[in-house]
């Protein structure tokens, strides 16, 4: 890799203008990025950093006419892509520069077969006969390691899994052996094990074809796994550029340092003493979805899914139990069964020696307050039509607390979760994602629960906000001696938050134990696979923080 040669792609002083009346004038401001042959350049930043729009500007895919390149050049070969004609841009797209996207489901046309969608690339860029095109397409699907390429050719996108769809997208993007591949968060929508496979595939194909890859991501773990060079963006500006080693281990800019500092380390935190008092005991919990017949027995027999299969665990006073697993593992269903949002078929949910599972509505009511929940989506978890004060106080009022008492307690809670008291009379839409999550936590604390069930409470948040919320949860748990069930797909988060872990797959707990033990010595094969798939596992952000 010689840096002296001319760059494949040279973005100079790029300005992308937003429509008048937006929060800021430029989505991307004065960004300069150089991509060389045979290298993977990661553009990393939080939401709103302008990283995605930079990528789209290169492809000429900005949402015209509102968003446009205002200044600067995008030099590629002999062309300035910021000014090139539509015809030339079309020639370049798909043949010299290709792109893959975050959502492989929506990025493929749902009513067209995979084969035809790949075929289009050849038809528009090369003069080839139909049989050659088909042979080449099958070859491509084989190259991205899709099983049974001939069957996949005739399949529609909905018949493939998420990972398979992303492989098909990659095959399509690499069909004409482009010089540059732009990947816009291509693994964000995928499970961690699938993500690891796709990352490996991209890296392998890149090195065998000497492609230059512009890889957009928010995840420093992914950066650590595949980047040769890194560009860090913040608020539309490039704040730091360097080799992967420089940025990851010796970051110079304060923002980069803060970002890396916020990445949870994979080494579990020091174990804490375990209490003897069992707060919550779940035994042989079972939940089956579907299987019922539709009206008059005419509907299609619904497929049975054993979402929770014989799950047992106990939660001691003051400890945090992490339930980790990929999507579809049943971890969220377990959480919802415990708080009785979903009725489990069988098993026991023992809280203070009372089995909550069979309780009816009325009998359950006094117990509701003892188990409260923090939800994942900070935008969906607050009623947009109610004021924040009402949202938090609602539970207390329902439990019969007088209005003044509920209000003063609500103001107290706002203070505890780090929000201004004035939030009381505002509506949820006036707050950012992180602030909303604080409101959600305040609501859950309002009834002084014994157990807090947190369902992916930070996975919708940017990494720096995520660190703040995790810190808040930790603080509250200490202060109120709460016990917590923490659902997450992110092993980094789990390592920093949880005292004990239960690893779930296909509705079953495959392994449980203390966090340190599981990370150091995973016994189940699936746990090993999960741990092996964590992006950036060989990189410890704390080392970077120390060196800085």
């Amino acid at each position, binding site marked *: 890799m010689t840096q002296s040669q001319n760059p494949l792609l040279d973005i100079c002083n790029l300005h992308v203008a937003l429509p008048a009346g937006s929060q800021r004038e430029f989505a991307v401001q004065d960004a300069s990025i150089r991509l060389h042959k045979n290298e993977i350049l990661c553009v990393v930043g939080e939401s709103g950093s302008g990283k995605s729009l930079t990528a789209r500007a290169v492809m000429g895919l900005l949402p015209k006419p509102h968003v446009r390149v205002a200044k600067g050049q995008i030099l590629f070969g002999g062309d300035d892509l910021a000014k090139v004609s539509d015809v030339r841009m079309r020639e370049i797209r798909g043949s010299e520069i290709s792109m893959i996207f975050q959502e492989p489901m929506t990025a493929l046309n749902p009513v067209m077969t995979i084969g035809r969608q790949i075929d289009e690339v050849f038809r528009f860029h090369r003069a080839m006969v139909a049989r050659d095109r088909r042979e080449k397409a099958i070859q491509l699907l084989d190259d991205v390691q899709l099983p049974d390429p001939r069957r996949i050719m005739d399949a529609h996108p909905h018949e493939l899994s998420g990972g398979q769809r992303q492989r098909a997208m990659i095959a399509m993007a690499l069909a004409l052996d482009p010089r540059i591949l732009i990947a816009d968060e291509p693994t964000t929508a995928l499970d961690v094990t699938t993500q690891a496979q796709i990352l490996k595939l991209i890296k392998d194909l890149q090195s065998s074809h000497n492609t230059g890859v512009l890889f957009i991501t928010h995840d420093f773990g992914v950066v650590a796994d595949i980047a040769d060079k890194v560009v860090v963006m913040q608020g539309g500006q490039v704040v730091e550029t360097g080799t992967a080693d420089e940025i990851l281990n010796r970051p110079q800019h304060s923002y980069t340092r803060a970002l890396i500092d916020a990445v949870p380390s994979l080494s579990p935190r020091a174990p804490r003493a375990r209490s003897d008092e069992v707060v919550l005991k779940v035994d042989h919990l079972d939940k089956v979805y579907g299987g019922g017949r*539709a*009206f008059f027995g005419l509907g299609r027999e619904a497929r049975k899914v054993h979402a929770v299969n014989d799950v047992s665990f106990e939660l001691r006073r003051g400890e945090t139990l992490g339930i980790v697993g990929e999507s579809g593992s049943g971890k969220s269903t377990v959480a*919802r069964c415990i*708080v*009785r*949002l979903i009725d489990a078929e069988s098993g026991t949910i023992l809280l203070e020696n009372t089995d909550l599972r069979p309780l009816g*509505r009325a009998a*359950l*009511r006094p117990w*509701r*307050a003892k*188990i*409260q*929940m923090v*939800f*994942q*989506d900070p935008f*969906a*978890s*607050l*009623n*947009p*039509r*109610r004021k924040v004060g009402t*949202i938090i106080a*609602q*539970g207390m009022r*329902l*439990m019969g607390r007088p209005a003044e008492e509920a209000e003063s307690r609500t103001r107290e809670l706002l203070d505890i979760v780090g929000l201004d008291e004035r939030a009381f009379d505002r509506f949820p839409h006036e707050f950012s994602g992180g602030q909303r999550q604080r409101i*959600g936590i305040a*609501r*859950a604390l309002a*009834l002084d629960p014994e157990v807090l069930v947190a369902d992916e409470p930070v996975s919708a948040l940017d990494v720096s906000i995520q660190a703040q919320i995790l810190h808040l949860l930790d603080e509250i748990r200490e202060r109120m001696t709460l016990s917590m069930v923490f659902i997450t797909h992110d092993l980094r988060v789990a390592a920093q938050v949880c005292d004990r872990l239960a690893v779930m797959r296909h509705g079953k707990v495959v392994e449980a134990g203390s966090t340190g033990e599981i990370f150091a010595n995973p016994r189940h094969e699936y746990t090993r696979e999960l741990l092996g798939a964590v992006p950036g596992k060989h990189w410890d952000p704390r080392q970077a923080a120390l060196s800085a």
Partner: protein
Amino acid sequence: MTGFWGRFARNRQAVLGLGILAVVGLIAATAHLFFPEDPFSLAGRSMSPPGANGFLLGSDSLGRDVAAGIAHGAKTSLLIGLVATIVAVCIGVIMGALAGYYGGWIDDVLMRTTEMFQTIPSFIFAILLVAIMKPSIESIIIAIAVVSWPAVARLVRGEFLSLRNREFVQACHTVGMSDVRIMLGEILPNCLSPIIVIGSLMVATAILIESGLAFLGLGDPNIMSWGFQIGAGRTLLRSAWWVCTFPGIAILLTVLAINLVGEGLNDALNPRLRERS
């Protein structure tokens, strides 16, 4: 609510619609002042063209004043349109809310019923109902409501179905809130926008159905309506074009205005949709 009016006023078509609607409303409200006589009564020479014999819009074969008919007809159209829509929206919201919230067999039963009502050709069904109940303003309102509610029910069911699993609703369950309170206090306010939009568009449809019924001779025989005027004037097409033409324009303008207002409401209440187009 300045935000709402600001967004509504940005749509010039919607403001135009609102203006027309205000004029129609004004005409309906003042009909008895300007035309105190019974619109069915003989008001002068029959078959007078517009402008002649003191008839602004002419008279028909029985000497009835077309303009008076239009003014009184406005009252009928707006009244029937509004009341029938309110009844239909109430039925639809209750059915849709129960089906969407509870799901399961309740959903199955209610939705099959809705499907059946949607399958039935609605206008013929309305004709049948009015014919069986004998034409009167009540039977017309009932008939229009009965054929209009399924659309509301489907919409509300869809909204409830997606909102009932929204996390803020689940949060209400975790503090032990009752189903009725969740449905009325938490979910319903969040689907008011689409209900208002579909309701406003339904007023337009109701007016069209009413005029169609009256045209076929199924109007309330004691109440003047635009459809009746056109129906009565159709035999005079050759000799007195104005008898049919003006009431038709009245229907057209009113329905158009309501549709424009409905779309304006849609744009103003669902800003996300507006940005897309």
